[in-house]
């Protein structure tokens, strides 16, 4: 029963969305990868929300609360912080894309610095960040398939099955069908979360919402404040502040978020979205409540299974139709963002790396589709090889992608910044994040708990600025890609 409902929901939405999206549209690279730059407020909103409200929001946020209590509340800050940065930043990116027909993040940086090699370098960085990020999504997708459909198969089967579904979905529909399915999935998810939240107190065997909070307080007195349940430096105030600072800086440096920025119809659409989007993130409150009820209902769940706490809670304590509905929408929640991740990785790799070596392949839809398959396979192996809590993976993703933030922000704020400076900074920052032998001494300079991405970002920024001052600035025409014309000729050479 649960299996049937889940399948009907997921397959129905995917087929319906794809057919609707394909109706009367001729596919080319622009259409396929940025939806022809025609998305109005609603479609753009759903697509952006789709990128925000992902498997991580559903499973990672609940895991955070389930494992630590208070530390998990950080998710409430992510969207509103990102939105206030987006209000300033996204219109600049969009304008550059609109004026010059840019499709990818690599296109933007190649044009801004008149340096295709720099576009290629940042593309490689970006693809690595996206593959890290797709681990979050695929881990979640596999977990949903495994927990809710309950077939007794090795874990890699579920990851591989998830990857297969993602690849097929992207190959057929592209960005447009992702946006259409995003609409279905967001509506469904809200409905399911409301249903689960309303039943949460009953499922946990207590008398109401107040009793859930009372119960958690009695069982885990340290859950309400940082560092949370049994917490140490890994989830203290410094972790909170450094992670939440990195999140909005890194959010638009994630190449898929960058690419989604291009799909809006106009700047007004983008700005209005930054008001509405945080409101949507209020649904995190439902997830927190559900996770707290799960904490009461599943006191003996091993820490290693915390990623699936919300799913297990629903499977054990809810009727089959709720399980099926959650399974179906859960699959979509993972599918749409992962599809966008793969689409972005492939289109930017084709356009900015492959296109540099083989110009005739630059806008090849076939090469991009081959890229989708290749990156999906890599992501599946990446996911199957390691297992971490979702919150840990996510902290790593933002530490890594935060290293692209100087390139992004300086290119719209500082005329003098150079591609060489940004490359030196990003490589140094990336090494500090990736190599523990470098990361540990950098972290030691900051209060314990600070996410490694922050000291790395400081080093990155200092090097980017320093080296930029020593290298030749880009041409005025290139600078104009990211910035308005200079107000006065007072520019030092």
């Amino acid at each position: 029963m649960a299996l049937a409902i889940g399948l009907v929901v997921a397959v129905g939405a995917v087929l319906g969305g794809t057919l609707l999206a394909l109706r009367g549209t001729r596919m080319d690279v622009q259409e396929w990868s940025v939806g022809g730059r025609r998305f109005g407020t609603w479609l753009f909103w759903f697509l952006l929300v789709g990128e925000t409200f992902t498997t991580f929001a559903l499973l990672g946020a609940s895991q955070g609360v389930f494992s630590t209590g208070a530390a998990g509340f950080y998710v409430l800050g992510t969207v509103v912080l990102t939105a206030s940065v987006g209000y300033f930043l996204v219109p600049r990116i969009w304008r550059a894309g609109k004026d010059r027909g840019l499709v990818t993040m690599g296109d933007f940086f190649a044009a801004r610095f008149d340096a295709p090699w720099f576009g290629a370098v940042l593309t490689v960085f970006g693809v690595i960040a996206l593959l890290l990020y797709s681990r979050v999504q695929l881990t979640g997708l596999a977990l949903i398939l495994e927990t809710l459909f309950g077939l007794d198969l090795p874990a890699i089967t579920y990851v591989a099955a998830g990857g297969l579904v993602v690849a097929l979905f992207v190959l057929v529909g592209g960005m447009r069908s992702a946006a259409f399915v995003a609409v279905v999935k967001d509506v469904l998810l809200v409905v399911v979360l409301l249903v689960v939240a309303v039943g949460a107190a009953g499922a946990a065997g207590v008398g109401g919402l107040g009793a859930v909070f009372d119960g958690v307080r009695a069982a885990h007195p340290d859950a309400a404040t940082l560092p949370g349940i049994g917490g140490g430096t890994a989830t203290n105030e410094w972790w909170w502040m450094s992670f939440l600072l990195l999140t909005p800086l890194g959010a638009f440096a994630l190449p898929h978020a960058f690419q989604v920025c291009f799909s809006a119809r106009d700047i007004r659409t983008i700005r209005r979205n930054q008001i509405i989007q945080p409101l949507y993130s209020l649904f995190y409150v439902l997830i927190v409540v559900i996770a707290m009820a799960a904490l009461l209902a599943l006191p003996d769940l091993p820490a290693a299974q915390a990623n699936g706490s919300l799913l297990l809670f629903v499977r054990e304590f809810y009727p089959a139709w709720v399980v099926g509905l959650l399974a179906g929408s859960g699959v979509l929640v993972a599918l749409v963002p992962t599809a966008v991740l793969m689409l972005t990785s492939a289109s930017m790799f084709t356009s900015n790396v492959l296109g540099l070596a083989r110009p005739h392949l630059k806008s090849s839809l076939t090469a991009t589709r081959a890229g989708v398959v290749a990156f999906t396979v890599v992501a599946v192996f990446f996911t199957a090889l390691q297992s971490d809590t979702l919150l840990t993976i996510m902290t790593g993703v933002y530490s890594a992608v935060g290293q692209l933030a100087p390139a992004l922000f300086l290119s719209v704020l500082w005329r003098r910044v150079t591609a060489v400076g940004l490359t030196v900074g990003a490589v140094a920052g990336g090494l500090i994040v990736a190599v523990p032998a470098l990361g540990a001494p950098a972290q030691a300079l900051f209060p314990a708990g600070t996410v490694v991405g922050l000291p790395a970002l400081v080093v990155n920024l200092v090097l980017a600025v320093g080296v930029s001052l020593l290298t030749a600035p880009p041409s005025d025409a290139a600078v104009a890609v990211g910035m308005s014309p200079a107000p006065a000729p007072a520019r030092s050479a």
Partner: protein
Amino acid sequence: MPDDEVQRGPVTRTPRHHWWLLALPFLWCIAAVPFVNQKAYVWGSVPFLLVWMTAGVLVGSAAIGVVFAIDSRRGDAERV
């Protein structure tokens, strides 16, 4: 070249001091947290940090809304 180059020229760059409101979420959700974290519960057993962060979403969205309203009234909503 784009047809609306006029809008983007240096002449129209009136200062947008109200954009400082966009920093409010950073103060609320990040800078204030060490102080907020001193208090554990409100209304019985509801974690205060949870209430604070939920309020932060509303306050932040409102701040962005005010910025957008001011920009719109000045005819500046399309200006990058």
